[in-house]
Every structure is written in structure tokens, then in C-alpha cells.
């Protein structure tokens, strides 16, 4: 005979304001098997937990239902409480009457009805709960960092510092990411390369760090502590080991008209290239879209001049498989494409540039060697207009609803640098608001206005029109003076919104992690678990989680590393005992379950069975490796004969819940 205790939490007013908790406790007290039904203000508090513990002891309970918040919050709390007084923790069920009830309903009557139904379903389920025992699984002491920008580099360095091996997978030929393209950094105006490149070198020289550049994650299997990742090392047609990075091949390559990604397409590179002088690894890469040898077999100059014999035109993509205990996502961001913004004439006029392009134009390693010149006629610009929030804080489909966060600060930086270097240049900044929270940020912005006399104008630019004399007409409104302006500009710089890298979404699918509607990775808790994803063992570093500047990115990268180290130092982790198992008498051996299992937990054996006619038959049947199974339940729904079932979420338990809800 079941003896079930029901405990209804008020959660202060979170639940009690919308759900009549006393009525819920009263209604559930009449459910079959329920011997005690109570409500309490904070069930998760010490005294609330004691209430549950005392009831278990006093009434010798065989099952507990807590009607409270999401099981993600406090399931563990109540399981531990039950275990501490000798009740198997898996005999505790949570009915979520907060997130799925009180928070989303307004009417007390309907919310109370729903809470009662949710409670009834949990009671029906707990009737069928079986005691379960958790096993343990080992942790692979190696981490994978996906993305080799400043976030990925910092995370890898911190993990390596703790003594664990860590691999960086970077899709570009070099690590460094966006920071490598930036000229100076706010608010201190130190040069980005000066502070980034030592870290790149440190990463490449650290004995614990392996860099897979020009590589992508092709497949992820497994689970926390034990991921198996397939890394695709794309063919760069150069032997990474042999190449010394001397650059002789680059110099001699006759194909010189390839848009240079590192300089945002503002100048050209060769078909064989080293992205920039401090690239790590400093290894050449052949671009197969432009290499004449790879396209039509005519050339081969690089191979001839390479003293190391590193050129290999027959190189193929290579796949390597590696096991990891933790994965850190650091896929970063890109500025959005501005082709749709006709009003700013970005596609029509070469002198309308993005802020990242301006970084390159001002950089000593950029197309003009650091002298700011107009891309169209290489003349010095005397009037520059900055447009803020291009695609940020935008309601329509063209842009992004969020604030890109970094633009106010880097624009202040750009304006200041230009005024410092070229005092004869007038700089206008059109803004919606200037947002400068952060240490020394507002002071920095005020310096731009007060010390450098940058013209900050509240208002948006309506239209940018290139004129026949090479000038650009910028039509804008000054909201404070309430007047329309026309500025005769030489250059216009657009602060394009930033968005997550396009590779993030397919990666999220592979990692089974969540994303928000803007394709930023979702953290496990926005306040309390900001660097963990909701998927155990997957951590988030940098702008893949949301727009961030460099200081914030580095802070989060180190935080993600700390979380990963916390996992890697463990020798084993407690497994979830809610795993699948197959009823061999029902199993057809059809392999449906094996095909859908994301963890490779299912294998097949030929077993001898006694048939109804007393003969024996050998049948192929599935068996589940409980140490590998993560209890996702995919196999239970794929199984045509219902042979697969899941501990803690059995087909009969789920049907019992559905029946209780429909009753």
C-alpha cells in the first residue's frame, strides 16, 4: 500500500498569490494513497525541508510529491532531504506549479484548478516510481574549446594553467579572432595586438594546449565527462609541421587579387597566404577558390619556392576523433551584413564603412599602413560622420532587437583617436543614447566630448547620399535642437550590430544546447549560472552568449574555465540512474533504438530464448549500457514494440500522468 505525502509550497507570493495553495493541499489529500497533504510558505527552506523529513519518518512515506517550482530549481534539494531520512531520492516527484502555473496564469480559480491537476498527475506518477540507485562514470581529463578568439584563448590558458590538456578548434587559419583585427582597445587605448599576440604565443607554446587551426567540429557524441568529438581538419594544402612560415610562397604567388578577409576586404592578399604577421600557427594556407594549381593544375610556383617542401596540393580534409570531459563554446560574433541598409549607401559608396573596417583603415598593419585615408581616392577625410545603432535596438526584421553593447565605446574611441591624430578633422556622432556603464567608461566618453570636441548629436541619420564631387551628404535630425541637418562628409562610419557567428546554430544542435531567438547561447541561469549552458559539461565563453566587450569577455572566459576545471578535477561524476533498459522478450532487434541513440549506449547481442513451443531460438536483442545512457528517452519512442523503457519516466508512468490530467 502506497503512503504518499504531498507538500504544497507558497513560494512566498510567487505561487500563493495566484494559486489557492490550501485548496490544492486539500484537493490532493483525497487522492488515492495520499496520507498527508500540507502547505508551507517556503518548502525549500530548512524548516520546510524538515516538514518533509518529519512527515517521511512519522508517516513512513513511500512517496513524496512536492508542488513547487521547476524541478530544475529544487528537485535535488528535496531528493537530498528524502535521502537523509532513508527514503530513496527517486521516490520524490515535483509538480511544477510555479513556472508552469502560477507565473503564467492570472485567474486564481483557473490556476488553482491547474495546480490541482498537475499535483494529481505527480501523485499518479509517484505511485509507479521505483527506487533507483545512481552509478558513477569517469571524467576524461581534457577540455575542448571551440573558437580561438580572445575568449577561447583565455579559457584554454586558464584550463592549461590548472594542469589539464585542452584543445582549441579554430575555423580560421589562425587563432586571434576579432581582437586581432582591432587597432586600439578602450578605455585605455592600448594596442590590441600588443596585448593579444603574447597570449596567442603563450597558447601555442603551452605544453597543455593543442591548437587545431583551420578546423571545425564535425560531430559531438557522448555526455558530460565523456564527450567524443570529431574534428575536421580542413585541407590547407600546406603541411603544418613542415611549414616554417617564412612567407616565400606568399611573395611569389602570382595570384594577387584575392580579397583580404583580415583587412575586411579593403585590400588584396595572395591565393596562398598567412593572415597576418603574428598569426598562430604561422603557417601558410592555400585558398582553393583562387589557387590556379588547385583550380586547373597550372602554376605550382609555391611548391617550387618552398624550401621546406611543405606544399601538398593533394592534401585532403582530415578527421580526428578525441575524447573530452568538458566543452567550452567560444564561437564569438560578427558584424551583421549591411547590404539591406540602402539608406546608408553602404553597398554603393566605398567611403561608407563599418566600424571594423575603420579599425583596419587606422591600423598600422592595415591597407594604408595606419594612415587614415578614404578607400575611394586615398585622400585624407576632413569630415567624418559616425552612425550608431545600425541594426541594433531595431524593431524591424532587418536588424536586431538587442543593444550590441560595444558600439558606444568603440565609437568614442574611434572619434578620439581621429581627433588626436588628425585635429583638422571634424567628427560627428549620431546616437540614440550613449551607453557607457563600466569601469572608466563614462570618463572615457566624456573625454571624447569635452577634451577632443567630438560633436555628439542625439538623433538618427535618415539618409546617406554619395554626391558626384566625391563628398557624401548625410541627412540627419538633431533631436535636442529639433532641426534637420545636412552634413557634407568625406566618410561615414556605421556601427553595425553584432550577431553570433553563423556556425553557432548547427553547433548548438550538435551539442544539444539551447539558444535564444537571436542565436546567442542560453546560459543555465541568467544570474546565478552565467557561464554554464543548460547541458551538463558545456560551458559558454565570450560573445557567443551575448554581446560583450573585451574585459567582460575575458572575465567570462576565465569563469568558464573555472567551471570546466571544477568538472575536470573530479575523477568521476554521479550518473543519472534514469536510464533506458530493454525488455528482451519484446525486443525485435530492429536497431531503431540504436540509430536514434545520441550517446551510442545501445548494443546488440544474439541471445538464446525459450519459445512457447519449448524450442529454443536465437534472437538479436538490444542492451543498454547504463554508464553511457543519459536517459533522453529517444529510444523509447523509436521502439516499435515498446520494448524500450526509461527508469523514472516509464511509458506506464507517463500514461498514468496523462490519464490523471485527462480525468
Amino acid at each position: 500500500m502506497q503512503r504518499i505525502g504531498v507538500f504544497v509550497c507558497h513560494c512566498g507570493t510567487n505561487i500563493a498569490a495566484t494559486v489557492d495553495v490550501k485548496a490544492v493541499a486539500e484537493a490532493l489529500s483525497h487522492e488515492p494513497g495520499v496520507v498527508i497533504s500540507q502547505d508551507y510558505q517556503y518548502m525549500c527552506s530548512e524548516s520546510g525541508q524538515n516538514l518533509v523529513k518529519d512527515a517521511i519518518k512519522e508517516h513512513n512515506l513511500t512517496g513524496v510529491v512536492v508542488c513547487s517550482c521547476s524541478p530544475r530549481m529544487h528537485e535535488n534539494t528535496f531528493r537530498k532531504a528524502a535521502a537523509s531520512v532513508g527514503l530513496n531520492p527517486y521516490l520524490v516527484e515535483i509538480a511544477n506549479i510555479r513556472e508552469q502555473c502560477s507565473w503564467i496564469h492570472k485567474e486564481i480559480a483557473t490556476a488553482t484548478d491547474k495546480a490541482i491537476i498537475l499535483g494529481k498527475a505527480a501523485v499518479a506518477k509517484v505511485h509507479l516510481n521505483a527506487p533507483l540507485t545512481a552509478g558513477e562514470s569517469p571524467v576524461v581529463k581534457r577540455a575542448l574549446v571551440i573558437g580561438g578568439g580572445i575568449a577561447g584563448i583565455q579559457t584554454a590558458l586558464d584550463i592549461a594553467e590548472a594542469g589539464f590538456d585542452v584543445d582549441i578548434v579554430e575555423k580560421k587559419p589562425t587563432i586571434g579572432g576579432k581582437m586581432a583585427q582591432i587597432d586600439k582597445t578602450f578605455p585605455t587605448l592600448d594596442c590590441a595586438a600588443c596585448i593579444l599576440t603574447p597570449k596567442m604565443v603563450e597558447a601555442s607554446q603551452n605544453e597543455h594546449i593543442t591548437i587545431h587551426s583551420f578546423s571545425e567540429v564535425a560531430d559531438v557524441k557522448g555526455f558530460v565527462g565523456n564527450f567524443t568529438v570529431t574534428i575536421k581538419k580542413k585541407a590547407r594544402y600546406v603541411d603544418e609541421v613542415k611549414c616554417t612560415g617564412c612567407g616565400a610562397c606568399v611573395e611569389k604567388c602570382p595570384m594577387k587579387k584575392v580579397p583580404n578577409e583580415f583587412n575586411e576586404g579593403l585590400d588584396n592578399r595572395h591565393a596562398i597566404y598567412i593572415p597576418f604577421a603574428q598569426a598562430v600557427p604561422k603557417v601558410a594556407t592555400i585558398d582553393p577558390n583562387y589557387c590556379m594549381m588547385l583550380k586547373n593544375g597550372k602554376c605550382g610556383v609555391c611548391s617550387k619556392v618552398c624550401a621546406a617542401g611543405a606544399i601538398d596540393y593533394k592534401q585532403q580534409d582530415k578527421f580526428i576523433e578525441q575524447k573530452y570531459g568538458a566543452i567550452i563554446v567560444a564561437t564569438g560574433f560578427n558584424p551583421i551584413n549591411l547590404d539591406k541598409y540602402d539608406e546608408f549607401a553602404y553597398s554603393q559608396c566605398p567611403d561608407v564603412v563599418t566600424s571594423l573596417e575603420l579599425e583596419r583603415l587606422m591600423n598600422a598593419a592595415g591597407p594604408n599602413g595606419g594612415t587614415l585615408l578614404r578607400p575611394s581616392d586615398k585622400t585624407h577625410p576632413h569630415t567624418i560622420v559616425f552612425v550608431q545603432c545600425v541594426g541594433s535596438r531595431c524593431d524591424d526584421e532587418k536588424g536586431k532587437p538587442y543593444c550590441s553593447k560595444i558600439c558606444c565605446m568603440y565609437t568614442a574611441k574611434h572619434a578620439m583617436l581621429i581627433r588626436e591624430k588628425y585635429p583638422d578633422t571634424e567628427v560627428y556622432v549620431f546616437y540614440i543614447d550613449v551607453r557607457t556603464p563600466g569601469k572608466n567608461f563614462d570618463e572615457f566618453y566624456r573625454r571624447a566630448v569635452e577634451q577632443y570636441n567630438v560633436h555628439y548629436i542625439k538623433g538618427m541619420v535618415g539618409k546617406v547620399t554619395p554626391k558626384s564631387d566625391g563628398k557624401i551628404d548625410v541627412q540627419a535630425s538633431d533631436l535636442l535642437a529639433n532641426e534637420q541637418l545636412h552634413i557634407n562628409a568625406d566618410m561615414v562610419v556605421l556601427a553595425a550590430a553584432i550577431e553570433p557567428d553563423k556556425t553557432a546554430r548547427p553547433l548548438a544542435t550538435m551539442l544539444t544546447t539551447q539558444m535564444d531567438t537571436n542565436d546567442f547561447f542560453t546560459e543555465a541561469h541568467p544570474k546565478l549560472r552565467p557561464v554554464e549552458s543548460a547541458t551538463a559539461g558545456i560551458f559558454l565563453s565570450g560573445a557567443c552568449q551575448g554581446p560583450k566587450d573585451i574585459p567582460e569577455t575575458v572575465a567570462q572566459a576565465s569563469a568558464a574555465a573555472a567551471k570546466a576545471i571544477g568538472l575536470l578535477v573530479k575523477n568521476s561524476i554521479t550518473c543519472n540512474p534514469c536510464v533506458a533498459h530493454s525488455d528482451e522478450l519484446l525486443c525485435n532487434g530492429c536497431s531503431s533504438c540504436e540509430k536514434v541513440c545520441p550517446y551510442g549506449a545501445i548494443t546488440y547481442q544474439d541471445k538464446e530464448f525459450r519459445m512457447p513451443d519449448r524450442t529454443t531460438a536465437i534472437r538479436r536483442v538490444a542492451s543498454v549500457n547504463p554508464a553511457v545512457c543519459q536517459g533522453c528517452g529517444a529510444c523509447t519512442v523509436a521502439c516499435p514494440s515498446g520494448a524500450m523503457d526509461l527508469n523514472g519516466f516509464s511509458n506506464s508512468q507517463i500514461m498514468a500522468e496523462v490519464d490523471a490530467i485527462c480525468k
Partner: protein
Amino acid sequence: MQETMIKRAKELLADGTVSRVIGWKKGEFGYDSTPAVFETAEELDRDFVFDDFTASNVSKYLVKESRKDGKILAFLKPCDTYSFNQLIKEHRVIRENVYIIGIPGGPKLDVEKIKAKGITGILNKKNENYTLKIETLYGTETMMFYEAICGKCQDCKSKKHVIYDELIGEDGDVLDSSRFDMVEKLENMTAQERFDFWREQLSKCIRCNACRNVCPACTCEKCVFDNPKSGIENKAPSDSFEENMFHIIRAFHVAGRCTDCGECSRVCPQNIPLHLLNRKFIKDINELYGEYQAGADLTSKSPLTDYDTNDCEPSIVHERGVE
């Protein structure tokens, strides 16, 4: 054709390649042949038949037969080879124990369509210039051949044998069939019209289980409808919606695995167009995940038990469901 098949079967029995033969056996009348296993040349001579009425798919019998001692010769029509392939993929038949001879497919005839013309006492029939000459107890009757073609052959998807050890006759091609036309018609109905259509059809069901028993995709050791633990086990309809659930559940169970062999509708004594349920799934799979033919080969993965990052998002179900 029948003689060639018997001759070859006898040879293979005689040289020990196979110990049994699965084909079709004459029934009481000229049109009620049934699948049967033959072990001797005498049995073959006496009972083996292959004619316009041998429409049944013998692949499913090989689940049991291929597990017995010795090798069995199976005569498979093109559509039957798809079923057999699918069974290999699901590890339900043991390929090594089956010697497959691919034989030409239909069009096969449906005796019910002949009877529906009011022709009874059928003794024999002859096909002359697209006209059927039917000898009956009451004299000779004629009807157009195409009017008697059985449903599954009308929408034939392929004349190609996707697996065989040898062929008798020539291999054909995958056909450009119009098999989804009726599904499209149903899709274009309003939800209420569609519901009414299926209620009318499915309420004819007498739960004889013939569709399940003949289906080459239904080979579970224990069917969920026979398993008291499944919660849906029920021999007889207990309420008026029971049979609807039976067919809907069955269609879901074979989704992505059904080769569209058409046996379910062929054997239905109530003439319910059950194959349309399966075809709807096939059409949806084709549209959502790209063309996929279950059983066409041994290596492809069924889209429903496979995924790649380009798969449509689950929200498509909602989008398509909106009227």
C-alpha cells in the same frame, strides 16, 4: 513464366542450393492462390502457381523461414524486394539463408473487381488484347483488363528489383507513379472533410487484424496491440473510436519503414484504403527530409531515425497544421 520458375526451383532443390521454396500455391478456385512453402519437386509440380492472381508479398514469411535450417528459395516481385530489403535493414531476416530470384511484377488482378461486375462462378480467365475473357460456370464473360487490376498495381512505384541473386525475365525501372494524387486530394480537404472521410472509412473496420498480419513492416515479436502492458491492447473495438486509433497507431509504427507495398489495402475485407495513411507519411517524409524510399537500398538511413543539422525544425508540424 510459371514453368520456367518451377524448372529453376527444381534445379536449385536438386543441386542442394536450397532446401525449400517459397512461392504461391493453387487454391480451391483459380483466383485464390496463397503463399506456400514447397520442399519437393513433386509438390512444386502439383501445387506451384504463378499467374495474374499471385499478388501477395511473400517477404514477411521469410522472417520465420530464414531462421530455419537450410536455405530457402524465394520468388520476389519488384515490390516484394523492397519489403525484403527493409527487413534486412531491421535485422528481421537472415539474408544468407535466402536465395532470391527476382520475377516480373504485375499488374496483378483483383478478383473482387471482377466479381463487382456481377461475374460469378469464375473458372478461368484469358487476357486477349487488353480484354479479359472469363470462363464461368454460366458461360464466357468479358471485361476490360485494366478494370480488374488490383489497387496496389495501379499505382505501381517500381518495376526494379532492388535485391536478388538471379533474375527471371528482365529488370525494370523505378516508375514515375501518381501514387500521391489521392493523398494530395485529402490534404486539400478541410480538416472536417478529412475527418469525415476517415471516420467513414475507418468505421468500417472489423478489427480482423488482416492488415497488421500481412504487413511486412509489422513483424514485432509481440505487437503492442497484443501486449497487455502496452495500455493499448484490445482485440475488439470497445468504443466507436477504437478502430481509428488502431489504424493511426499502426501507421505511426510503420512510418519511415513502410515500403508502400500495398498489402494492407489489398487484404482489407472492408476495402478501407489503408495505404493512404502510410502514403501520407511517405509524402510528408519526402517533402520534409528529401526523397526517401524505404527498402530501396541497404545503407540509407530512414529520416525518422536519423538527423542532420539541416532537418526541418519541429515547428513545421504546427505551421503545416494551420488551416
